[in-house]
């Protein structure tokens, strides 16, 4: 009797979770199938009609996308923004994190508390002043400008994460290295960075996704020649219906990269997002 009831309830649980899974999958399937349909088809019927006439699907939208200079340029801009913004954050935060954890300098504790406080500062508050500053420095509307802004707002979390991770290293390990006469730079590159690899990986993935997916910062700081994919697509959203043959495949391309990163580095990804959620 109990077993029957348990079997029944586990059946219900399974059914419920399958339903939730379908609900989660459907919008994504909608984007995917819409990206393979002509704009005429999208204007006249729903994407689920493809199941009755799969022959109408084609990759024409994607090949048109490849020939669309604005989109390909924006794709490369996204790469040119995300990669340096990730590398710079990792390098600068690793250097600073090591110093905050193991080197001695005046005001170390107080400065680090400021960094902790900066964790939750919303980017919105920086938009206007930094725009003025970049205007004076000639960085406004350029890729380096966008990168610098992302680096600055990625740093508090990055420094916080790496400092805490480095601080967990056994003291004896570092002292032994210092005894052997290693310079700080040598210790940093040969010991600290390798030991910190898991944290650095999580940080890099988190930061990469953050920048790759950003729209707000680039919306302000990039111009038409330096804008990433998100901004390029956003500019076409007003005529949503008539641009669907660009928007749907464009959005799919923009989400494929992070989703591949997600499946390739699941563990680091989840850890990075979890740690970064304090942001």
């Amino acid at each position: 009797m109990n077993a029957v009831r348990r079997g029944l309830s586990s059946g219900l649980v399974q059914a419920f979770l399958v339903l939730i899974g379908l609900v989660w999958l459907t919008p994504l399937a909608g984007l995917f199938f819409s990206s393979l349909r002509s704009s005429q088809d999208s204007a006249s019927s729903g994407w689920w009609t493809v199941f009755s006439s799969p022959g109408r699907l084609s990759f024409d939208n994607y090949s048109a996308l490849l020939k669309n200079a604005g989109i390909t340029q924006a794709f490369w801009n996204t790469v040119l923004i995300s990669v340096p913004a990730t590398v710079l954050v990792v390098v600068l935060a690793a250097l600073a994190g090591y110093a905050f954890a193991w080197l001695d300098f005046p005001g170390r504790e107080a400065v680090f508390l400021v960094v902790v406080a900066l964790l939750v500062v919303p980017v919105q508050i920086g938009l206007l002043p930094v725009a003025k500053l970049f205007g004076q420095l000639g960085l406004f509307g350029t890729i380096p400008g966008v990168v610098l802004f992302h680096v600055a707002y990625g740093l508090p979390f990055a420094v916080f994460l790496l400092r805490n991770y480095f601080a967990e290293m056994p003291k004896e390990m570092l002292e032994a290295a210092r005894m052997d006469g290693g310079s700080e730079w040598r210790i940093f590159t040969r010991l600290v960075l390798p030991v910190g690899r898991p944290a650095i990986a999580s940080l890099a993935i988190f930061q990469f996704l953050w920048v790759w997916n950003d729209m707000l910062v680039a919306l302000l700081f990039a111009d038409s020649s330096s804008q990433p994919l998100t901004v390029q697509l956003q500019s076409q959203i007003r005529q949503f219906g008539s641009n669907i043959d660009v928007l749907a495949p464009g959005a799919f391309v923009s989400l494929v990269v992070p989703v591949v990163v997600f499946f390739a580095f699941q563990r680091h990804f989840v850890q990075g997002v979890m740690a970064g959620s304090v942001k």
Partner: protein
Amino acid sequence: MTATLVKETSPPRIGAVERARRSRRRARIIALLFVFPALLLLGALVVYPVLFSVGRSFFDASGTRFVGGENYTEMFRDPATLKAVRNTAIWVVVAPALLTGLGLILAVLVEKVRWATAFKLLLFMPMAVSFLAAGIIFRLAYDEDPNKGVLNAAVVGVHDAFKGTSEYPTARAREGQGLKAGADGSYRTSGSVSPGKSVALGLVGVAPKDLPGGARPAYGAAHRQAAADEVRGVVYLDFTPGGGGKQGKVDPRESGLPQMKVEAVRDDGTTAASTTTAADGSFRFTGLKSGSYTVELPGSNFAQPYQGVSWLGPMLVTPAIIGAYLWIWTGFAMVLIGAGLATLPRDALEAARMDGANEWQIFRRITVPLLAPVLTVVFVTLVINVMKVFDLVYIIAPGPVQEDATVLATQMWLVSFGGGNNQGLGSALGVLLLLLVVPAMVFNVRRFRRSQR
């Protein structure tokens, strides 16, 4: 002894002190070199802008006149900004609570199935997707046309399954040919009918291609005689394909209208009998008492098809965008709560089970209280994130309803850069956003200091 020792070792020691001091200074310089690049960027692009914005928020739009707290009072006077404050409040009240609840339920349930990992991966995946892509995904899903938007297709499907569809939304009667329209969209015979009579009710406005599949000509049925206690008739399409028919007459090639609801109504308005027409449009009411009746085609035959819900209309746009937000963040809540669940003491749960507690009691009395710290962290994290929501609102809300959906972050953008061009008010909104996260800031700093002791 000590003195001699000092004396003996003092010359080399002075050198050592000097060397130690020098090496300490060197170490400090190295340390500063390590932190300098990060601190320079943080100072120039984060700390300075915060101070600048705070200062700027006390000046007017052009930045020339000091206005004190005027921008801050303006925020609650200007209807658009006030709307943003209200919407942000709705977001903060609704989204984190829903997400934490849903995350908790799913985290508990998913442990009971074997494919938990696959499920977690699927639900977590939207965290990798940009708000822009998610916005486009949900613009598609929320499309108002039930033929295009999957959500409305589902809603209409469910609605029609329960309420039924009307067969003839376009049909109407010609003026002055025996039928008069009621206020509720129904048609009834203009004269009264008594048992033993037959009626022919002609309608137009149905395209031949819209006729139900099995519809047959009404000619034969129209000429059948009614018995003394019955009223017979046909409902037909008074239109001969290719022309040639006569208006108001059942011509040989004219089709009956099947599945039409028909009622016989007494003079006092009560319904005596009701039926549905056959494939040739015929109907009959048997066993009627003598008297006079009118034959009525109820309005439900002609109701406009149900079009679903206007998700992105002014009323529902904020709940709709919150729905998209749930799609993105539920996996996050579930995984974080699931991690907390894994650390719960197994024996407490087992002991409760042994004592005969059912799953619900265990959930209520043990799981939830023990998970409270984790739930708080999830909730607070979500509150902070929700307050800054921007892209999703900016993308999903169509132009005309943008102002109904606006939140603090989008309003700040619109006021500062998107045509508002009031950088004083824009800065004040930025500062408000900052003030809202100050509790989280204090919390972070406190927690960090505690962890260092």
